[in-house]
């Protein structure tokens, strides 16, 4: 028990330190302020609508804009923070001081990754809280479906974060992994496209065409499909107790965790033999 505790105490300290360091970053604060402004501003967009009609459109406008703002700014924050935690320390050489202490690389990585997750969660909670308040003040009932939506959004971010983190472990500056992270986010949302390639392959009857189809099929099976998380948008405006949504939510959480773990393992594989 003691050994387990001592193994995790190191990463916990690093995570707290990473969190304190990361939360002060100006770019991050900029993204957060922008997202909060958009969420706050969504309440005023209803002024464009006819004030004489009593409808729920105002509420829908707020919901859709806020969910989208959280998805976009949340993804940007996730990518930025996951891309910068390790290269930042390589740049300012703090990593040498840490790794010269009795800290194993896996502990260091775990600490960094958990610290990044802490920052993402705090930012998501801040955005979610404002959104939650905006909805609660409008409709007067607790928007509980929003909590499920936020949870799903977080698990989508876990996947993006883990793979961006893996890229950042191979890079010496945050720029490359940031671009890589954005690429991952976009391609992750376009995974469905691979299925289209698979369906269209084989039409010419050429060998190469068939191989491309098989590759697309293989990639479609292995690569994480971020579109699965579009349920987070759907459930905010949907009906409660929707049977498909009830089944999909736990599956998506597990999905996020598994790919998060795969991304972290990739990060360890890269960082394990890295010359620092």
């Amino acid at each position, binding site marked *: 028990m003691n050994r387990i505790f001592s193994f995790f105490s190191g990463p916990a300290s690093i995570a707290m330190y990473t969190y304190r360091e990361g939360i002060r970053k100006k770019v991050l604060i900029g993204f957060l302020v922008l997202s909060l402004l958009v969420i706050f501003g969504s309440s005023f967009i209803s002024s464009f609508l006819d004030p004489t*009609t009593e409808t*729920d*459109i105002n509420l*829908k406008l707020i919901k859709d804009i806020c969910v989208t703002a959280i998805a976009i700014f949340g993804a940007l924050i996730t990518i930025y923070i996951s891309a910068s935690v390790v290269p930042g320390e390589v740049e300012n050489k703090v990593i040498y001081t840490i790794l010269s202490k009795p800290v194993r690389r896996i502990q260091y990585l775990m600490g960094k990754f958990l610290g990044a997750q802490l920052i993402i969660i705090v930012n998501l909670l801040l955005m979610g809280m404002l959104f939650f308040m905006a909805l609660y003040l409008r409709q007067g009932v607790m928007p509980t479906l929003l909590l499920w939506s936020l949870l799903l959004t977080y698990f989508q971010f876990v996947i993006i974060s883990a793979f961006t983190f893996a890229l950042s472990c191979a890079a010496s500056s945050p720029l490359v992994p940031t671009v890589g992270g954005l690429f991952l986010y976009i391609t992750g949302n376009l995974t469905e496209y691979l299925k289209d390639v698979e369906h269209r392959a084989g039409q010419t009857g050429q060998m190469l065409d068939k191989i491309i189809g098989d590759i697309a099929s293989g990639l479609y099976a292995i690569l994480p499909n971020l579109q699965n998380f*579009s349920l987070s948008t759907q459930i905010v*405006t949907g009906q409660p107790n929707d049977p498909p949504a009830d089944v*999909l939510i736990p599956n998506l959480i597990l999905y996020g965790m*598994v790919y998060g773990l795969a991304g972290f393992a990739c990060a360890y594989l890269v960082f394990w033999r890295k010359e620092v």
Partner: protein
Amino acid sequence: MSALSKNIQRTIIIAFIIGTLAIGAVLNLHLRHLRQSEAFYRWILAFAVNERLFQEDRAVDADFDLFYQCAEVVDTLPEMTGLIPPKDESNTAPISALSVIASDYTHDKELWNFARSKEAAPLREEFLSLVRERKLRFAQDIQYAEAQAGGVNLFNFFFGFRKVAANFVWLEVDRYWHQGNTYRMITLMRTCVALDPQFIDAYLIGAWHLAYNATARMPDTPWPLREWHAKYEKCLGEKERFYYVAVDFLKDGIRKNSRNSKLYFDLGFSIYKQKLKDYPNAVKYLAEAVHFPHEQYVPRQLFLCLELNGQYEESLVGWKDYAARYPDNPVVQEVAPRFIARNEGFILEKLASNLRKKAREAGDQEEAERLNNEASDLWEQARAVWSSINDPFGEGRKMRMEALDMREEGRHLEAVAYLDKARWEASDLFDDFSNLIIEIKQEAGIPLTISEKKAVIRESEAGICAGMPEDEIEKRSQAAQELDAAN
């Protein structure tokens, strides 16, 4: 660390990555299966509601074939057949068991289990293949189905942002409304719901704009200017066409959101009751609206429409149950007793009229007298009920009864004169009294006025309009000639 141990460690990490990716791939497959099943499930709901409620929009196509294959499979599954309620003999419309199951939202879980079951796997595959070929009418806008269909576009990336786009399109609709650009507005409204098929308010407000605001300053189209619409089997002018466009718009919304009571309510109340005065359809959709979680005022409108449709017994039972359900609601306790009395009055009047009719038909003099006495008792009870209501409607009904008494005694001219005066005193019953005047005049052979003749022709739908099929023209012309001869 030795080179061997490093290699082992690396192998373990790589194996771990491959393992997690393999688990991820399995989960990917499972999620794909769930999403495909969801698209299939939503399509079943859309088709079932179309089959059950919109019989006029039935066509034998790919949707129809696939749905009936699904219905056949459902018939073989004991867990599904157990959900089918005993057959309602009064309902003669041929509806599949699957549609009956889908009509109750408490069966959604079972329906969802069917949609993702092994038994439904070949049907699901066929569904997806038809979706890819864009052959299914009711899967065009089901979001997951569209995603599954793929296509070389950036749709998948913007999947989540379509709802935001729909909101901005709606802001444009609102702007066009204020500018009076009705025709532009309609196109954009359609774009809006195509972007976000779950945008309930777009359907509701869109239909309201179409049926109320767009037609607010339009006069009723004169009969000769109307055109035949085969789809609705009616002669419609520009104004009347807007009502039916609103009906279609709401029906589209219902297919895509079959569990939302607001859409059924607006179709039944705002359009069929208020605008088209089509009470059977109003009852049909309001009865659907109360099946789903609804506002407190929804049943009240259903009971009102039942009354207007002549279903007094159902309306009475409904009002009594409603009053018992909300004993602490002052509005309910004020309104319900009045309507309970109204329906009791109607039922008594109806029973009395039936007994009088039987008396007239009875061969035996004694039997006829007994029936007439019974009828008179009921008639007096009805009069007492109307007196107890003590409102303009009750007074109007008493006047009506008075006029009917005069008619019974053969004092036709007196009855007509009485009703002519009464219709200005009880404005709620103006149309009813006007129709009764026509009826009495026709019965007594008193000539109709020009406006009354026109009303008779209108009522009998003997009007002929441009584009009407030959057989329809013949049928209506014959009806008009018969009426003319009768007058």
